[in-house]
Every structure is written in C-alpha cells, then in structure tokens.
C-alpha cells in the first residue's frame, strides 16, 4: 500500500516562512521592509540582507524580543474534569481484567484433584469474584456520572467515551459470567463423579447437598448481577452492524441535535424576552409613573 510522507517538505517550508515572518511581526517600523527579512533580528542578518538587497531602506534595529512573535502560543490547557472520571473507570476496568486472569488460574487450581478439601481455594475464588463484581458495579455507577446535558461538542465526546467504556464493561461482565458458568459446570460434574464413588458415605451425601445449594445460589447471584449490568449498559452499547454503528449517521445526528439545540435555545431566549414577567413589570412601571404625574398635578392644582 503506497503512502507518501510530506512532513519534511512541510517542515522546511514552515521553518523558512517562520524566519521570514519573525522580523516583520515584531515591530511596526519594519513593515516597510517585507519579504527580505529586514528590521528586527540579529545584526549580522541585517547586514547580510542589506548587502544582498541594496535597494532596501536601512531600518533601525528593533528592541523588541523576537521571541514574542509567536502571538499567544496555544495554552495547552488542562483537560476537563470528566476526563479524570473516565480515566478512573478505565483504571478500574484494567484492574478487573488482571483479577480475571487470577480468577482463571484459581478456577483451574480448584478443579484439579487435590488432597485437601479445597476450602481455601473456594474462599479465594469467592473473594476474587466479589472483587471483580464490585469493581464492575463501581465503574458502572461512575459511568452514569459521565453523561452530560446539552448539545455541545464536549457532550458528544463524553457520550462516545461513555459508549466505549460501556462496551468494555459489558464484555468483561460477559467474560466473568462465562468463566463462572464453566467453572460451576465442571465442579458439578466432579461432584457427581465423586458421589458415584462414595455412595455409602452419608457425610459426603450431606455435604454434597449443601454444596449443590451453594452452587445454585452462586449461579443465581451471578446471573442476577449480570442481567442488572447488561440492562443498564444496553442503552449505551452500540449494536454492531446497525445504522447506529455508522460514522456518517452519527455525524448527521450530531448536526441535527446541535441545530435542534440551537433552535431550542433561541426559542427559549425569545419566550423569555417576550415573557409575561417583563411585560408585567413594564406595565407596572408605566402605571406608577402615570400615577405619580397625576398625584403631582393634583397637588399643584389643589
């Protein structure tokens, strides 16, 4: 695939034009000397140019600092506050991802046949799962804060950031759910295998019933949470392949909402100006003035 880089030529032109521009912009007396680099600037340059261009007038050296010529350099301002929120959410998502990797390892370890009763494995798994779910919940709540009102470009950026983070969150939740379900399925299979062997051990039978209940509870809980998260996020997440996923559709929509917003604002402005309050106030003031005049007339005449 062919491309061509024009940056060097661009920089060359830019530097050349900058050196032309710097002397002419720093003092008004040099305005008569254009294009040849007269006026302000180092003495050597002036001498050489006057040698090269004998026709040019000798303009006095400017005392202004040529470094000021960059009129009002772009102040790289601080990003708005919501960027911090979005970065926090992104950090949480990252943390959740690393925890997921640990969870996968813990799952694998717990499924392996071991000598102990695997209680500590269970505890670590539960702990990790709860951590991840907590992180996802927190991120989801913070996500709501990102939404902004009003049709401005900033709000579009925020909406898009929201969407992107929502997609990440949803994917993480689905992944968590999948891992959990496979783990629970494997666990159940193992338990059934074990029960098949120890038919006479009542203790085991008792324990397996309790564990089955626990498993079911865990399943219900995770399904519940996932459904909750998905419901909240489904408004934000873009369905791939639909019209909402098209760039040109989004641009059009932005244009129309911005226009709509402008119209609404103008309408509000007009109604406010025309508003009853202003009318009432003016009428009252006029009436007060009229009454005052009548009062004065009355006192004068009588």
């Amino acid at each position, binding site marked *: *695939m*062919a*491309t*061509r*880089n*024009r*940056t060097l*030529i*661009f920089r060359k*032109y*830019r530097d*050349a*034009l*900058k050196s032309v521009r710097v002397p002419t912009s720093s003092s008004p007396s040099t305005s008569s000397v254009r294009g040849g680099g007269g006026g302000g600037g180092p003495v050597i340059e002036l001498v050489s140019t006057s040698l090269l261009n004998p026709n040019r007038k000798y303009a006095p050296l400017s005392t202004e600092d040529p470094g000021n010529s*960059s009129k009002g350099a*772009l*102040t*790289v*301002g*601080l*990003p*708005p506050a919501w*960027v911090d929120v979005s970065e926090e959410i992104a950090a949480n998502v990252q943390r959740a991802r690393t925890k997921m990797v640990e969870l996968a390892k813990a799952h694998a370890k717990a499924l392996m046949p071991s000598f102990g009763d695997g209680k500590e494995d269970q505890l670590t798994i539960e702990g990790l799962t709860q951590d991840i779910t907590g992180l996802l919940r927190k991120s989801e709540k913070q996500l709501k804060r990102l939404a902004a009102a009003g049709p*401005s*470009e*900033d709000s*579009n*950026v925020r909406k*898009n*950031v929201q*969407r*992107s983070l929502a*997609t990440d969150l949803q994917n993480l939740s*689905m992944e968590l*759910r*999948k891992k959990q*379900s496979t783990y629970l399925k494997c666990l159940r299979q193992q338990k059934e295998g074990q029960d098949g062997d120890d038919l006479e051990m009542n203790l085991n039978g008792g324990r397996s019933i309790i564990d089955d209940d626990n498993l*079911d509870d865990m*399943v*219900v809980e995770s*399904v519940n949470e*996932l*459904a909750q998260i*998905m419901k909240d996020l489904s408004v934000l997440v*873009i*369905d*791939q*392949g*639909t*019209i*909402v*996923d*098209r*760039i*040109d*559709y*989004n*641009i059009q929509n*932005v*244009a129309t909402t911005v226009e709509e917003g402008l119209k609404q604002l103008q309408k509000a402005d007009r109604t406010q100006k025309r508003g009853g309050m202003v009318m009432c106030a003016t009428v009252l003031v006029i009436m007060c003035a009229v009454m005052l005049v009548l009062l004065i007339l009355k006192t004068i005449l009588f």
Partner: protein
Amino acid sequence: MVLVSAARDYVNRMLQDISGMKVLILDSQTVSIVSVVYSQSELLQKEVFLVEMVDSISKSKESMSHLKAVYFLRPTLENIQHLRRQLANPRFGESHLFFSNMLKDTQIHILADSDEQEVVQQVQEYYADFVAIDPYHFTLNIPSNHMYMLPAVVDPPGLQHLCDRIVDGISAVFLALKRRPVIRYQRTSDIAKRIAQETSVKICALHVLSEPFICSLKITAVEKMIYLVNNSSGMQKLMYQQESGLFDFRRTEMSPLLLIVDRRDDPVTPLLNQWTYQAMVHELVGIHDNKVDLSSTGKLPKDQQEVVLSSEQDAFFKTNMYENFGDIGMSIKRMVDDFQQVAKSNQNIQTIEDMAKFVDSYPEYRKMHGNVSKHVTLVTEMSKIVEERRLMLVSEREQDLACNGGQVAAFEAVTNLLNNESVSDIDRLRLVMLYALRYEKESPVQLMQLFNKLASRSPKYKPGLVQFLLKQAGVDKRTGDLYGNRDLLNIARNMARGLKGVENVYTQHQPLLFQTMESIIKGRLRDVDYPFVGNHFQQGRPQDVVIFVVGGTTYEESRSVALQNASNSGIRFILGGSVVLNSKRFLKDLEEAQRIAKSSTNVV
C-alpha cells in the same frame, strides 16, 4: 477484499501511532470513504471520541486542547482554506494531516504559512480516494456525473473537474494496490480516451517520482543492465532491441489492465428493473454508501427507518445478495422460522440453567432480532412496490426487449402496456426507451407512434428525452455488440439460447460487461475497439483487471463481476464507476444533460 482491506489499512495506520483521545475530522467525500469500511465502535476502540466535518468544525469556538486532531481530507481548494482557518486558530492540541491524494507544492506552502503555532505534527498522503462499497466494487459518488454526456465545449471547467476526480480515484486504486497498469479505453468514446490519457500521464509522473511501485523496481534493474551492456560493449541499439522484448514481457506479466469504458455503450442495463436482492433494493428504494433510507415509505419503527446493507457485516446478506427474489423469500422465511424457535425457547424459562443460558445469549439474540426485522422490512417494502407498479408484467416485457427479437410482437406489447393505466410514468418511459434502443432503425413510423403515445400519456415526460438518448447511445455510437446481433457467432448463440429456454425470465439479461470480461479472459479483446494508451502493449492475459465505467456502474454488473471472480478463472476483476446507477439516476442524468445541451445551443 482488496479494496475494502486497503481502505481499512489506511485508516488503521492513520490512527494507530497517535496515542490519547483523538478527534477525526473528515470532509463530505472522505466521510463516505471511511464510513463504508470502518464502524463507529471500531473508532471508539481506537480512542477516537469525536468525528466532525471540516466545514462545521470551522464555525465552532470551543477549545479542546486535550484532544488530538486527525484530519483526513481530499486535497481540494475549499479544504485547504478550511485548514488554513483551523491552523491559524487551533482548537486542538496536535494536528495530524492526511490527504487522500497528491498535494501540490503550493498547497503545502499555504498550509505551512498558516501553521504559525506549529501544531501540525505530520503531513501524509494516504491514497484512500475511493468508496469501497463491496469487495470488488468501488464508486466515486460524483454529483456532476451527467457531464460525461456533454461535449467538452459546453462546460470545460465542469468537465475538467469530473475528469480530475475520476483520474484521482483510479490512480488511488492503483496506488492502494501498488501496481502500475496498462491502460486501454473504448475507442468510440471521447471522454474515455481523455480519462485514459490523463490517467496515464498521472501514473507516469508517479513513476518518475520513484514512488513504491513494484514493477518499477524490476524495470529499472533491466534498464540498468541495458545501460551497462551498452556502455561496455558499444553494441547499443542491437542490445536494447534484444532486451526490450524481455523488458516488455516482464512488465506485461505483472501489470494489471485498466479498461475504461463508457456507460453509453450499454444503456440497457441501467434501464432494466432488477430482481436480485442488492440490485433490486437499489432499483426500488435506493442504496447509498451501503445504507438504505426507508423513511419515505410509510410508518416504520424508528430503528428500521434507515438500515445498513453491507456484505462485510451481515452474513445473511452476504450469502443472499445475488439471489433472485423468489429464493430470497424462501431464505427469509427460513431465517424467521429459526428465529421464532429461538424466541420460543427463550420464553420457556423454567430452570435456573435456562435463565442463565438466556442471559448469556441475550446479545446474540438481540442482534439476530435486529437482522431479521431489517430483512423482513426490506422484502415487505419491495413486495409492496412490485405490487403497486405491476413490475412483474412490465419487467417481463423489458427483459424481452433486451434479450429477444421480434419487432412486431415487441411493438404490440409495448403499445398495450402504454395503454395500461396502472403502469407508472417512469416504467412507460423505460419501455419506450428500451424499444427505441433495440429497434431504432427498423420501423421509424412505429417508433414515432410510440413517442407520441408516451407524450400524451405521461404528463411529466420531458419531450425529446428518448431522442436524446438515441443520439447519445444509439446504434452508431456503440462499440460493443449489445444485442448479440452483429456477428454470426453471437446470432447463433442467441438462437441456441432461445431454443433452450431460460431458467428465469426475469433474470435472463446479461450485461454487456459480461461479454467484455469473457473476451479479456480469452485474451480476445480487440485492439480496434479497445486500443492501448501510448506505446504499451500487452501480450499475455493480465491477472488483475480494473474496469472503470465512466457514467456509473450498476449492481447488476457488480453481481456479474462477483460471480465471475468466484468462478476462479485465474483473473481477478475489479469494477468501478463514477456513481452507482439505478434507472431513476440514469434518467435524471439524461434529463440534466439534455437540459444543459438545450440551454447551451440556445445561447450559441
């Protein structure tokens, strides 16, 4: 895949090296180019959180210096002006400029002049200057397409603008493919010749700039060899001639073929009604940049008013886009049945496991639901239109006129349909045009009768349109053998086909492009009809062929190309045009051209 993947690669490269939050700024042409190959969700993944148009962004005053601006524009005058204003008062932290075609030095100068605050970090040319709507089909979406029908004297700058855009688009395709083509054009078309020559000049210029063309490396190696041999041995002329054979062979073995043809060589294809899915949707409703706008066809739920029909993203569409209407009905019914089964099982939730399964598969369920509704809506709309306009009846006649002979029967049939009240104006016009194109010379009296009847029946008909069409694309102007009645072999073939009968009356028409492709495959494209540009000459069969139709392509032709590519003949075809036509657009172009031609003759 080539076109779509090339465009996607370009966009990926633009975005990947720039870290942080970005805003992508496009112009009205590049927005189409990017939208058909890249989706909004993919942009979000690349941290592009705002997409704006370059003309609207110039008006805003908000400063967003925490964003980095990525501009992807065509190098036109207006865009450079917009950029000047932007760079003089920059709103974003950094600016990265990407242009879809070659910049002139003056333009770089202007930009450098206005970049006082030095926000521009890079200026690159990424040659994604075409809209890749299908893997082997691209278009240029040129609004002033009708200019191709007018002679150059009418509006020289307008025609120059059209030619420039086409040449830019074609060279971008070859730059994206990184190949240098051998160019052939249709002899009888002036505009095809002009475009072929201008493209040749531009590509030669690129070669001189020693841009990365694979062929050029081999050629320069051979040239160097020739030079050394010449200097060392002194047997100059003889050696060069001996080597030149090798030179040509090497070059033609790798060079793709660019064939430039004129729409007017095959005016029948855009006039016919279509019955294969993609072509039919475009003909009856209209597809623009792979989007279908259904908002004008009655009350629909909000999310179905505008839908996306892209073979890349929709697996059902990909398998069914070239199927005819009857088969599509069956496929959709099957899809709906499958979906209903899934829906029923979802409603039947009894155990916790069912619940878990439902929640897990919910996103896919939603996607399937959306897809099914989209296709059902489209097919319902099209069936409605077919009913209203009696298209089954009309289209049968049209296909007859396009494919089979029999002037007398054709005349009677067309007259009957013209008398039929339920046939719409545009269909009547099309019938008369198809009749006129075929039987132009055979019975002028009856032709006049048809014109008069058309004028009396259709109040909105602009008089002289059919005659204008005949002047543009009549039998004397056409190169190709449109009706298969010019040489003996074709006549015999037609008779054989008539005897055998056709599988489906409605899809029996083959566009002229099909014959052209066959000739290329057999290596029998006549030099008399399609000469080479310059002194290039290609002996063997090319492996890649790009066919550009000045005036616009149709989806019927792109279907032909796709089926040909799927048949593994060893040659890969790519089709491109200035627009994608349907009968409405073709007639609109004709009317525009007629209006301008009339007004210019009035002035003169």
